[in-house]
């Protein structure tokens, strides 16, 4: 690949505006990417603080720090904030920064909508968090908000929660449309679909998933709103409604949602492993097909979250088999990553460490996922800490490690400075140890019989809960170090080269470091 580098256009200057208005009015994909990333970091810390409250309460049996009512508000907000405020906006931020640069486009296709889709997000989370101070407290029905606990029996703040989810949904849909339109229309000549970098592919598929399922979520919360305020009985059995219908609708959104949170991670990790193995990615086309199969299968497995609601035998069998099938394309991806490393020329910089940890720990989350797919065994696992361990393994050392890996990998391109490698490695090892000490014992606690969403527990679960809490605080504290490293890198550090990494491939490495405010105003030539 070769490219025309466009970074000396001082004759008609288009640098960023000065001051606060730069960020308020910006339509620049890099500015908006930065906004998304900082916003998600802030949410990550707030959601993390809530996790610390949860783990502190669970340090020992008995109620010590909070009351059950507040504990339920914490688990609800922790889940909502981490999913909708932490992981999803972080991936959108990365898409904003990287997709145009990777396909040789000057910006996102719909820059004004891009601005809007970011700037409504802070309001959504302001509304959600303000519910903590309302009479009756914040939403307390879990991030899955099953009716009728979230309708007839909910605190009054549920209406604000519904409004907030609507705004988040609108933001996600706009972001997704922008990604699709950009990728479909703005690829530089020569960047055919099957030549697109995998991160771009992963986001194209993710964006379609978002467009398909966010309206379903909006429908679910609107039906709740009708039940609460307008006398309908969608989910109210006493009025002829069906509480199980809520779960079907929710998980029809919810299962693709979990792939929305992992597909971009697949893309990121593919790039990083390729770079630091100094070897072309193994099985590019099978990677693409695997992601497509996972995305399609994600629409026919939702009821594996509902094995205990009393589905007929035929449905239980179908959803068990369909769920197990997802292991095949997921396996292909893992094998491809390992085959890429095989006979490579590997070095272990911080992004690579996070990427390797991703492959190992995500695969462990995949194993527990496979166990959960087995319906009869799921009767024992369902809604216990085994499930908590499973989804935290795929989300924390899965999605979140991939985001951290991406930050270390691309931050030299974003701000022109290298991060401090020694501190980066320290951050990795603290996070790696912290995450495993936190979540590995939760497998034991769950198998031994502790249900999730319990503010207090029987004595036989005491030992491993204590260990888990220690790990959680280690992990929590090490993220302060991450914040420090990022700020330090933005402020200064060793000047990065344009190529940054010896083995890196792709158009983003052909522009200067830091990337100029406008890149590829003339499309690069790609062979």
């Amino acid at each position: 690949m070769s490219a025309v580098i466009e970074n000396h256009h001082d004759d008609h200057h288009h640098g960023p505006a000065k001051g606060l208005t730069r960020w308020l009015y910006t339509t620049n994909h890099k500015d908006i990417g930065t906004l998304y990333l900082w916003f998600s970091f802030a949410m990550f810390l707030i959601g993390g603080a809530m996790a610390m409250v949860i783990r502190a309460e669970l340090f020992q049996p008995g109620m010590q720090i909070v009351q059950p009512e507040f504990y339920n508000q914490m688990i609800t907000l922790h889940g909502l904030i981490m999913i909708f405020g932490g992981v999803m906006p972080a991936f959108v931020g990365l898409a904003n920064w990287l997709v145009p640069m990777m396909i040789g486009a000057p910006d996102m296709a719909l820059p004004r909508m891009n601005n809007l889709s970011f700037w409504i997000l802070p309001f959504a989370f302001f509304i959600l968090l303000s519910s903590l101070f309302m009479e009756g407290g914040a939403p307390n029905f879990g991030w899955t908000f099953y009716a009728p606990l979230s309708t007839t029996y909910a605190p009054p703040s549920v209406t604000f929660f519904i409004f907030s989810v609507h705004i988040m949904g609108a933001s996600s849909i706009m972001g997704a449309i922008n990604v699709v339109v950009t990728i479909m229309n703005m690829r530089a000549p020569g960047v055919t679909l099957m030549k697109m970098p995998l991160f771009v592919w992963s986001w194209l598929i993710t964006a379609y998933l978002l467009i398909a399922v966010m309206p379903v979520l909006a429908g679910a919360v609107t039906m709740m709103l009708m039940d609460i305020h307008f006398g309908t009985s969608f989910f109210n059995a006493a009025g002829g409604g069906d509480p199980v219908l809520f779960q079907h609708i929710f998980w029809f959104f919810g299962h693709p949602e979990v792939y929305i949170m992992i597909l971009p991670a697949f893309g990121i990790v593919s790039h990083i492993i390729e770079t630091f193995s100094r070897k072309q990615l193994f099985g590019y086309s099978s990677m693409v097909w695997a992601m497509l199969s996972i995305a399609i299968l994600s629409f026919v497995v939702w009821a594996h979250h509902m094995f205990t609601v009393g589905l007929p035998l035929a449905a239980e069998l179908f959803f068990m088999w369909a769920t197990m099938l997802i292991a095949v394309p997921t396996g292909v991806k893992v094998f491809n990553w390992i085959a890429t490393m095989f006979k490579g020329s590997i070095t272990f910089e911080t992004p690579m460490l996070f990427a390797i940890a991703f492959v190992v720990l995500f695969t462990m989350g995949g194993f527990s996922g496979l166990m959960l797919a087995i319906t009869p065994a799921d009767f024992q696992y369902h809604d216990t800490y085994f499930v908590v361990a499973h989804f935290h393994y795929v989300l924390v050392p899965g999605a979140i490690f991939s985001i951290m890996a991406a930050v270390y990998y691309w931050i030299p391109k974003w701000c022109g400075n290298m991060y401090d490698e020694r501190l980066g490695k320290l951050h990795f090892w603290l996070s790696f140890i912290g995450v495993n000490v936190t979540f590995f014992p939760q497998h034991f606690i769950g198998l031994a019989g502790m249900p999730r969403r319990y503010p207090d527990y029987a004595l036989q679960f005491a030992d491993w809960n204590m260990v888990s809490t220690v790990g959680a605080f280690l992990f929590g504290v090490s993220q302060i170090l991450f914040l420090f490293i990022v700020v330090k890198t933005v402020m200064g550090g060793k000047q990065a080269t344009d190529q940054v990494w010896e083995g890196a491939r792709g158009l983003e490495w052909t522009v200067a470091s830091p990337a100029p405010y406008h890149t590829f105003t003339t499309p690069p030539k790609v062979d």
Partner: protein
Amino acid sequence: MSFKYLHNLQNKIISALLIFSVPMKADWFALNMTRGATDISNEVFELHMLIFWICVAIGVVVFGVMFYSMYAHTKKKNPVAATFHENHKVEIAWTIIPFLILIAMAIPASKTLVKIYDDEAGDLNIQVTGYQWKWQYNYLEDDVSFFSNLSTDMDEINNLVPKGENYLQEVDEMVVIPVGKKVRFLITANDVIHSWWMPAFAIKQDAIPGFVNTAWTKVDKPGIYRGKCTELCGKNHGFMPIVVKVVEQSEYDEWVSGKREAAMKMAELTTKDWTAEELVARGESVYAVNCVACHQTNGQGISGIFPALAGSDIVLNDKERNIEILMEGVQGAAMNSFSYLSEVELAAVITYTRQSWGNENNGDGEIVVPKDIVDYKKPKI
């Protein structure tokens, strides 16, 4: 003043430390699922272990190759990377082999599932109803019915006294079933969704308002088995355990006749002449079990969600509406009908709320006797 406060704080800290330093039963080895007490639970355990070991085996192979690469293919040892980037044979192999392994897992899993879904009638049918936050059990053949509440002391939960061995796993009334008989549970709920989980029987079935789910078991060994609610159902989700006592048939029969006698005695109480003091004394315990979670010990409720009873206009002055709310619940709110309580319990608890927290002096002071409830229940023309 501040000195006294510090002194109190100091005492609190010391007592807290004393309780924490009591050695708890160490359970570092509570690592795995247990076999449970039925054929099905054993089968589920075998299935769990089978999949676990398959996953371990795959993990050893896959991570083995990966760690080997990380060791042998570093830049130092292998300065120039190989250039291969696809191999169709290998790729087809690692698509088909996992597929075959999955089929090998799916066959025993499907067989066990079919067994669990056996729909034949049981020797004994028990209707299980979830409430916020307790379970009700109705023995359909034996005409026995009761509620089962957590019996752990609040002081244990609040760390004021040491915790007992069955902390949060004990109830005031256990479900009793006979050994070796096929028992069917018909599971439903009265308010929000709950889930009835008994690990030793490998039963976890959601209790959903408007639905009746079924599950069955046949337990071969007498004993006491403990389970929990596993669907978030509000504030006290963690405090509504399940305890099943499996006994010999003769012991079960005795238990049934004992329960029936107690029910008859209760019925007699309805016609007795009650004084306000007797009703208040009885009502206090009914309140403690059924009402205190929402309306609180001091009758103040929780602002914004659960209304206060102390000073409530209905409790002070409107006896008829007071009875109606208890019998019918409040549409669209967390207050459910409590018509399943006995006439005596209802009369006692209403009287208690009308005679406590200063209500006795601020309202009409009227008491409710069991006959009022009986009259309410009579068909209105």
